[in-house]
C-alpha cells in the first residue's frame, strides 16, 4: 500500500503529537490514585473526555480521582459510556463534593478491575439495569469529598493554618484571614502525600451547585467532531481485521471449509475455523469481507433450532393453556373472574428484537509475550475478562481490558456468556502466535447474531363488576428466560425469572384479585436484555389492557388510572404531571388526532407519557407529539435525563412500529437496516419532558423512557381508529 506521503505524515504527526502531549502530564503528583504506565492526555480549556487507547496499568484502592499539577481533575468512570451519560454524571458527583470548577473536570473509562470498579448493585464490574448513577451516587461523592479533604489538608500544612478555616470554591482553596489561595494543581503534589481521611461529611443537597444544574456533557466535543475513539477506530501496529463467517442457524458448527477462493483475495493473511464459525484475517475490512463471501462452508446443523416463527407462536399458545408458575398473587383471581359481570380476554404477541447499536460489535485484542490486552466497549468487564483468560489459557493477571466508548448498546454488549470477547479471543488464539487483531461484526452479523429480546406471548383476562370496577386480573406470560444459565441465574426465585415478569408481577393498580404467572420456554435462539428488558413487553400488555378495561367501563384513561393509584404517589405524581403538561382533556382531541396515556415504573424510576397520533400516509400511526414526565429521584443532570427520555421514546417507538426478527426454519429472515428498519428523523415526534423535583435517592434513566411509549401510542391509535394492536409490530408482515 502506498499513499502520497503528505497525508500519511499528517496523520502520523497528529498521532505522535497526541501521544507526546499525553505523556507530559506530569509525574507522580497524584491525589488518591496511583497509575502505572497509563497515558493521561493533557488538555486545557473545557471539561472533556480523555481517550486513551492504552489503558494498561494499575490503580490503587481509592482509584477514582486524580488531581494533576496542570490543574485538571480526572475521574476514572467505572461505567461504560454508551450514550446514557455516565461519564458526565459520575464526574459531576465527584466535582460537586470536590468543589471543583466544571471546566477542570475530565472523565476516562476505567479498565477491567473488579475489586476497584465493581458495580455496587451487581457485585461485578458492569453497566446495565439503569444502575450507573444509583449505585455510584454516594461512592463518587465520597471520592470527591476525600480528594477535597486531602487538598485542604495540604493547604493547611503549606500555609500553617487550621484546616477548618480553609474554604474551597470552584477549584480554588482560600484562607481569608491570611489572604492565602491556591488552585488544586498547585497543591496536587503535596496533597498526594496526605493520608486520606477515614470518613468524610457529604454536602447537604441544599448546597449542591453542580448536581441538578445540567452541566454540558463531557463527550459532546469529541463526538461532534469525529474525534471520539470507538473500538473500530483503535490503531495497533500490524493489526489484522477479522471477520467471522457465522452459521446460518444458531449453534451450528463448521465441519468442512473450502477456502481456496477466499485465500486468493489480495490482502487475506489467514483463515481458521473457530468454535463460532470461520475466521478470516486480512489487512483491512474490505479484503476480509470479500474473502468471507468467497468461503464455501459445510455446517453441522444437528441439534439446532429449526422452527419458524409461526410454529413457535403455536407452541407458545399451547404453553399459555398449561399450568403455570405463579409470579405473584393476591386475593383470588379465579373466583373473582368467575363472579365478574363482564369479562375481557386478550392475547399479546411480542417479536424477537435485535438491539442494533450503530456501532456493530467489535473487539480489538492482542497477544504479546504471554500477556493479552483487549480494548473494546466492554459492558460486563468482569465476565469478559474471565472469558478471555479462559479462552487464551492465561492467568487472569495476564489479561487486561481497556474500556472504550461504545457506539450504543441497549443491552447488547452486556453479555453474560462473554460471547464477543470469547469470539475475539478464539480468533486470536487460533493464530497460534503473538498478533494484534480487530474483530469486526458487519450489520448482517449483528441483525442475524441472536441475543434478541425474547419472543413473548401474554394472555390477559380481566373482570369488571356491575359498577365497572376492575375486580379480577389474570395474566400469563410465556417467554424464554434471559438469565437461566448465566451468572445472574441466582436471581431466579421459585422457578420464575424476574426479568420475564417485571412490570407485571408488581402491577401498581389497586385490583383486589390478581394473578400473574409465567412459563419459560426452551428455544434454540439466544436471548438477552434489550433496553428495559421485561418491561418492553409487560409495560405494553398491562398498560393497553388496563386502558381497554377503563374505556370499556366509561372511565377517562388518566382519571381512571389515578383512582387505582391512591397508594402509589409516585406513579400518580408523574401521571398528573404529564396530564398537566399535555393539557389532557381526554383521548379524543378532534382534527384527525387522538391521544393515549401510559404510566410505568421500571428500574425504580417512574415515567408517564401521553402520545398524540394521527393517521399516517402508510396506514401506520403518525406520532405527532409526546409529553413525558419522569420521577427519578434527585435529578443529577436534568438535560441528560430529558435527552434519555427523548431517546428512549424514539427507540421504543421504532421497535413498536417497525421491528421484528422472524425465523424461517431456524434461519433469521432479516439482515440489515433495509429489512430491520430504524426510526428516522421524519418519524420522530415532538417531545416535551418534565422532570419531577425530588429528594428521593437517584435512580436510572437509560431504560425507563422506553416502556410507556408503545402503550401510549397503541392507546391513542385505538382511540383514533377503534383498532387494538396486540401483535407487534404495527406493520407486522409475518405470522
Amino acid at each position, binding site marked *: 500500500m502506498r499513499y502520497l506521503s503528505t497525508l500519511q505524515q499528517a*496523520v502520523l504527526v497528529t498521532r505522535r503529537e497526541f501521544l507526546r502531549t499525553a505523556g507530559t502530564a506530569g509525574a507522580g503528583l497524584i491525589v488518591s490514585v496511583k497509575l502505572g504506565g497509563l497515558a493521561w492526555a493533557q488538555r486545557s480549556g473545557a471539561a472533556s473526555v480523555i481517550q486513551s487507547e492504552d489503558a494498561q496499568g494499575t490503580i490503587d484502592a481509592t482509584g477514582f480521582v486524580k488531581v494533576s499539577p496542570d490543574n485538571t481533575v480526572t475521574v476514572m468512570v467505572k461505567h461504560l459510556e454508551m450514550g446514557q451519560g455516565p461519564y458526565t454524571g459520575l464526574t459531576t458527583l465527584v466535582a460537586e463534593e470536590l468543589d471543583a470548577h466544571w471546566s477542570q473536570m475530565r472523565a476516562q473509562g476505567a479498565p477491567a478491575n473488579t475489586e476497584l470498579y465493581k458495580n455496587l448493585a451487581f457485585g461485578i464490574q458492569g453497566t446495565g439495569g439503569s444502575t450507573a448513577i444509583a449505585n455510584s451516587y454516594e461512592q463518587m461523592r465520597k471520592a470527591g469529598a476525600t480528594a477535597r479533604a486531602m487538598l485542604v489538608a495540604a493547604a493547611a500544612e503549606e500555609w500553617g493554618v487550621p484546616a477548618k478555616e480553609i474554604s474551597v470554591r470552584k477549584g480554588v482553596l482560600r484562607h481569608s484571614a491570611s489572604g492565602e489561595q491556591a488552585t488544586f494543581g498547585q497543591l496536587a503534589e503535596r496533597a498526594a502525600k496526605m493520608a486520606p481521611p477515614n470518613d468524610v461529611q457529604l454536602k447537604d443537597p441544599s448546597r449542591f451547585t453542580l448536581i441538578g444544574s445540567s452541566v454540558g456533557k463531557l463527550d459532546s466535543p469529541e463526538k461532534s467532531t469525529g474525534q471520539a475513539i470507538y473500538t*473500530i477506530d483503535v490503531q495497533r501496529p500490524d493489526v489484522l481485521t477479522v471477520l467471522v463467517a457465522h452459521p446460518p442457524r444458531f449453534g451450528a458448527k463448521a465441519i468442512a471449509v473450502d477456502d481456496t477462493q477466499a485465500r486468493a483475495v489480495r490482502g487475506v493473511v489467514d483463515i481458521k475455523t473457530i468454535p463460532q464459525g470461520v475466521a478470516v484475517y486480512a489487512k483491512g475490512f474490505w479484503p476480509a469481507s470479500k474473502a468471507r463471501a468467497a468461503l464455501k462452508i459445510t455446517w453441522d446443523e444437528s441439534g439446532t433450532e429449526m422452527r419458524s416463527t409461526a410454529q413457535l407462536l403455536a407452541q407458545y399458545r399451547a404453553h399459555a393453556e398449561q399450568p403455570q408458575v405463579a409470579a405473584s398473587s393476591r386475593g383470588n383471581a379465579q373466583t373473582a373472574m368467575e363472579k365478574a359481570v363482564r369479562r375481557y380476554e386478550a392475547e399479546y404477541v411480542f417479536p424477537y428484537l435485535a438491539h442494533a447499536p*450503530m456501532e456493530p460489535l467489535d473487539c480489538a485484542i492482542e497477544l504479546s509475550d504471554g500477556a493479552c490486552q483487549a480494548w473494546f466497549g466492554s459492558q460486563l468487564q468482569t465476565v469478559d475478562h474471565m472469558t478471555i483468560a479462559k479462552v487464551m489459557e492465561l492467568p487472569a493477571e495476564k489479561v487486561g481490558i481497556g474500556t472504550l466508548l461504545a457506539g450504543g448498546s441497549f443491552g447488547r454488549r452486556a453479555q453474560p456468556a462473554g460471547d464477543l470477547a470469547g469470539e475475539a479471543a478464539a480468533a486470536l488464539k487460533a493464530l497460534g502466535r503473538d498478533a494484534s487483531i480487530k474483530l469486526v461484526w458487519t*450489520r448482517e452479523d449483528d441483525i442475524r447474531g441472536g441475543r434478541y429480546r425474547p419472543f413473548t406471548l401474554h394472555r390477559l383476562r380481566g373482570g369488571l363488576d356491575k359498577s365497572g370496577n376492575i375486580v379480577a386480573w389474570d395474566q400469563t406470560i410465556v417467554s424464554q428466560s434471559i438469565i437461566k444459565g448465566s451468572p445472574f441465574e441466582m436471581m431466579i426465585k421459585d422457578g420464575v425469572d424476574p426479568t420475564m415478569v417485571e412490570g407485571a408481577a408488581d402491577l401498581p393498580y389497586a385490583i383486589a384479585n390478581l394473578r400473574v404467572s409465567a412459563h419459560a420456554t426452551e428455544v434454540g435462539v439466544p436471548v438477552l436484555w434489550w433496553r428495559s428488558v421485561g418491561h418492553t413487553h409487560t409495560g405494553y400488555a398491562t398498560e393497553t389492557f388496563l386502558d381497554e378495561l377503563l374505556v370499556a367501563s366509561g372511565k377517562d384513561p388518566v382519571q381512571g388510572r389515578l383512582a387505582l393509584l391512591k397508594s402509589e404517589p409516585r406513579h400518580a405524581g408523574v401521571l398528573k404531571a404529564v396530564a398537566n403538561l399535555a393539557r389532557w382533556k381526554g383521548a379524543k382531541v378532534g382534527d384527525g388526532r387522538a391521544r393515549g396515556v401510559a404510566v410505568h415504573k421500571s428500574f425504580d424510576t417512574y415515567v408517564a407519557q401521553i402520545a398524540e397520533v394521527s393517521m399516517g400516509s402508510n396506514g401506520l400511526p403518525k406520532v405527532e407529539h409526546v409529553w413525558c414526565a419522569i420521577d427519578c429521584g434527585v435529578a443529577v443532570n436534568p438535560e441528560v435525563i430529558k435527552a434519555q427520555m427523548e431517546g428512549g421514546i424514539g427507540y421504543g417507538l421504532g421497535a413498536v412500529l417497525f421491528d421484528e426478527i422472524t425465523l424461517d426454519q431456524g434461519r433469521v429472515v432479516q439482515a*440489515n437496516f433495509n429489512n430491520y428498519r430504524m426510526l428516522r*428523523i421524519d418519524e420522530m415526534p415532538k417531545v416535551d419532558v418534565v422532570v419531577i423535583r425530588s429528594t428521593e435517592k437517584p435512580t436510572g434513566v437509560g431504560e425507563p423512557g422506553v416502556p410507556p411509549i408503545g402503550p401510549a401510542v397503541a392507546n391513542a391509535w385505538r382511540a383514533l381508529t377503534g383498532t387494538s394492536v396486540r401483535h407487534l409490530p404495527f406493520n407486522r408482515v409475518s405470522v
Partner: protein
Amino acid sequence: MTSFFVNGQSVIVDVDPDTPLLWVLRDELKLTGTKFGCGIAQCGACTVHLDGMPRRSCVTPIASVAGGKVTTIEGISGKEADAVTRAWIALDVPQCGYCQSGQVMTAVALLAEIREPTDSDIDAAMAGNVCRCATYVRIRAAIHRAAATLGA
C-alpha cells in the same frame, strides 16, 4: 492505483478498484471519524462530501472517486461547519455519538444549500441518517440553531 484528494491533500492508494471509499479512508488513510454502520447506504454513518455533495462512502467504489475531492469530518471547515459543530456541542446532541459524524456532514451540506431550513427541509435532508439513540429532537433543534447563527 487511484489518485484523489482528501481534505485538500492529494493521495494515491493502491487497493482493489471495488474497495469502498469508506475503507480506504479508515484502513488506508487512518481517518476514522467516518463510520461504518451498515455497508448498504441505509444509515448514513459513513457520509462524506464528494465534490461538495453528501455521499455514502460505504457504497462508493474507490475507482469512481478518481480525481475527486473528498472531505471528511476531520477536514470540514467554513462557516456552516463551524455553526453546526458549535450547535451540536451547545445542545449536547450526541448520546453514543457513533452516527454523529455522518449527521454533521449531512447537516453542513444542508445549510450550504438551504440557509434557513424548515422542519420539513430538515426531515427531507436528514432522513437518510439513522441515529439509533434517536437524538433527532436535538438534531433538528441544532440545525435551526446553526441556521440562526449563520443568519446573524
